[in-house]
């Protein structure tokens, strides 16, 4: 099946009830609001091909602390809006007079978006398992719309990467990916992820990436 590319203003259907994300209704008809691919399976949705990360509640993100205020850490989450991590959302008890001791500017964290209000004030939390400060490893940035391809169907792509390379990987919904493991293998994993990003719209991606990985691993063993 060929996927259909639409641009803003393309008419997608006559039933306003089917209007999903990336679409809008005018005069009882559904139009595309985005430049992207159409998904007509349940409702009519347009999956964008580009765009910035807009935080949504319960997203897991990788953030960078940029500032410390008297009760909040301000976190860059690779989005037009900054995240706020209140000291009560830190996993330990925090002495407000000495917040830098727990988390200082420049540190990277895995956090969950606790709430986003209509003015786009983004509240983060670290009070959950898996949420922590990243002390080691490397973080790369890719376009957040390509994240689903890096994860793959039911996580097939990412689990293949982890298994074949024996590297720890965490994929944030905001387009940041954290990797830790053997340096050479992390290098290869990063190359592979950039390859996935470049070829995100091609078919049979998991298979072609598998071939690529096997070839590269072979080379790594021989050197």
């Amino acid at each position, binding site marked *: 099946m060929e996927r259909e590319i639409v641009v*803003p203003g393309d008419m997608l259907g006559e039933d306003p009830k089917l209007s999903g994300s990336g679409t809008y209704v005018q005069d009882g008809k559904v139009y595309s609001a985005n430049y992207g691919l159409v998904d007509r399976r349940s409702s009519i949705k347009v999956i964008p091909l580009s765009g910035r990360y807009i935080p949504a509640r319960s997203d897991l993100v990788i953030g960078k602390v940029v500032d410390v205020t008297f009760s909040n850490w301000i976190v860059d989450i690779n989005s037009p809006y900054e995240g706020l991590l209140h000291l009560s959302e830190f996993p330990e008890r925090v002495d407000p007079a000495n917040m830098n001791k727990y988390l200082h500017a420049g540190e990277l964290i895995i956090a969950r978006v606790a709430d986003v209000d209509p003015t786009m004030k983004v509240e983060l939390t670290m009070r959950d398992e898996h949420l922590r400060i990243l002390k080691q490893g490397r973080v790369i940035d890719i376009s957040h719309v390509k994240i689903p391809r890096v994860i793959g169907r039911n996580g097939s792509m990412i689990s293949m990467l982890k298994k074949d390379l024996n590297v720890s990987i965490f994929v944030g919904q905001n387009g940041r990916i954290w990797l830790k493991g053997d340096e050479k293998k992390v290098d290869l994993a990063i190359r592979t992820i950039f390859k996935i990003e470049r070829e995100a719209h091609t078919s049979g991606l998991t298979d072609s990436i598998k071939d690529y990985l096997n070839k590269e691993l072979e080379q790594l063993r021989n050197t």
Partner: protein
Amino acid sequence: MTKPEKLIVDGKRLDGRGPLDLRPIKFKAGVLKRADGSCYLEFGGNKVMAAVYGPREVHPRHLQNSSRAIVRYRYNMAAFSVEDRKRPGPDRRSIEISKVSREALECVVLEALYPRSAIDIFVEILQADAGTRAAGINAASVALADAGIPMKCLVSACAVGKVDDTLVLDLNKDEDNYGQADLPIAVTQFGDVSLCQMDGHLTEEEFGQAVDMAIVGCKKLHEMQKQALVEKYGEMVSPQAEEAEAQKADGGERSE
């Protein structure tokens, strides 16, 4: 350049076009790596580069609007874009064009989705040959879509003018300089006019005809704009993308 004696000879214009023909046009979407969206456009002798950044944080802070995104548009002519060097920097003309072009595009951008943010559009005229504001709007509209900014539809713009008492579509430099009227118009795909300026003189009847001609020209441009966006991904689309996109709703992937 001196004024040519006649601008229309045997029903043909000086560059060989009929009265209803556009100049050769070439769009290319996604040409700048650092911008969120971009478009390069050749519109006859005009060469225009448009770049879109955002939505992003607003600086200076007092400009931000807590209920919607603001749109900023900068139209700039390069010093080398015209025969005599243009003094660089904003002048009265480019400030006016920036304002009207911004308003022409603002009405289709779904600003309410991104409160407290800014969408910046930069249009750089690398080579000018009459009709640069229309070319700028066409390019900026494609760049906005390329940046993934939600919009109601694309905006297309072109000019109609009157030379030798005849209405002609898409004026070239000579027709612009020595013609009797120039009427740049921008329309959305639904036919709503979002920019309409005029200098020179037209009768009421001519004005009506001119607007209709411009709308026909914009329809053609709209097709080219769509084409440019589809071509950027073109043949590369696959059914597999669909499956993976379904994962989007699920949370992040974790390890350890």
